[in-house]
């Protein structure tokens, strides 16, 4: 497959967007994905976003920054982002690199991530009474 032409799908299920990142992203693709997700949040009024990075073999400072930037932008739009399935080796490397991803929540897998979002939605609903 041509590296230049890969596109990452965004899937909507109920109130959530699911983004399975299946390729080693180059910078333009990462930036494109970021704005694509934000547009999709605005369009669908999704309450939460699950970004599955379980096949990503590395996250460098660029992708890390993209993920945390997206989480804070989504927060402004009242949407939560959960990063799902980060490989242990990737997590270790991120810590050693010194990259803290402020505002980024992580979950072990899709199911746990979904539970996290549901819990958050519920607590938000009770808050507003």
């Amino acid at each position, binding site marked *: 497959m041509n590296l230049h032409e890969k596109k990452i799908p965004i899937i909507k299920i109920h109130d959530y967007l699911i983004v399975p990142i299946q390729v080693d992203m180059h910078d333009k693709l990462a930036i494109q994905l970021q704005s694509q997700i934000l547009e999709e949040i605005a369009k669908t009024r999704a309450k939460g976003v699950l970004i599955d990075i379980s096949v990503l073999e590395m996250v460098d400072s660029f992708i890390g920054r993209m993920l945390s930037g997206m989480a804070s932008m989504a927060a402004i739009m009242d949407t939560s982002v959960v990063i799902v399935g980060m*490989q242990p*080796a990737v997590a270790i490397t991120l810590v050693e690199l010194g990259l803290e991803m402020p505002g980024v929540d992580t979950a072990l897998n899709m199911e746990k991530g979904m539970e996290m979002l549901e819990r958050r939605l519920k607590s938000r609903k009770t808050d507003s009474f």
Partner: protein
Amino acid sequence: MLEFPYNTDCDLLGKFKIDTEYDIVTVRQVIRQYAKDMGMGIVDQTRITTAVSELFRNMYNYAGGGEVLIERGEVESHNALIVTCMDQGPGIENLELAMSDGFTSGQGMGYGLPGTKRLVDRFEIQSVLNEGTTVRIMKWK
């Protein structure tokens, strides 16, 4: 171009150019494969791949690209994967500052160089203003 004094005999595994952001992805994948072939574990594979990705992006962002040399050799009785990144960009004015956590001259977070150093077993950097920058890193198997 700057050169490090060679302290060892190395086999040249490959030589690549980093001209575009696609090259960053392609060449970091090549290096992961070499790390794998040498028998490095998954965490070390991830460390070296992430480290070179930071160095490639620095070359691409600040020097308009550069060259990469991949070697394998015995260093201090270690089986080493050696990656040298050379560019002919503007050079780094203050190396000490550039190597400190959180320093960036641009929009970065300033963890590329100091973070890379933490991910590898050897980290050497030379830079001359208006001539360029060379970074050599090594990872032991």
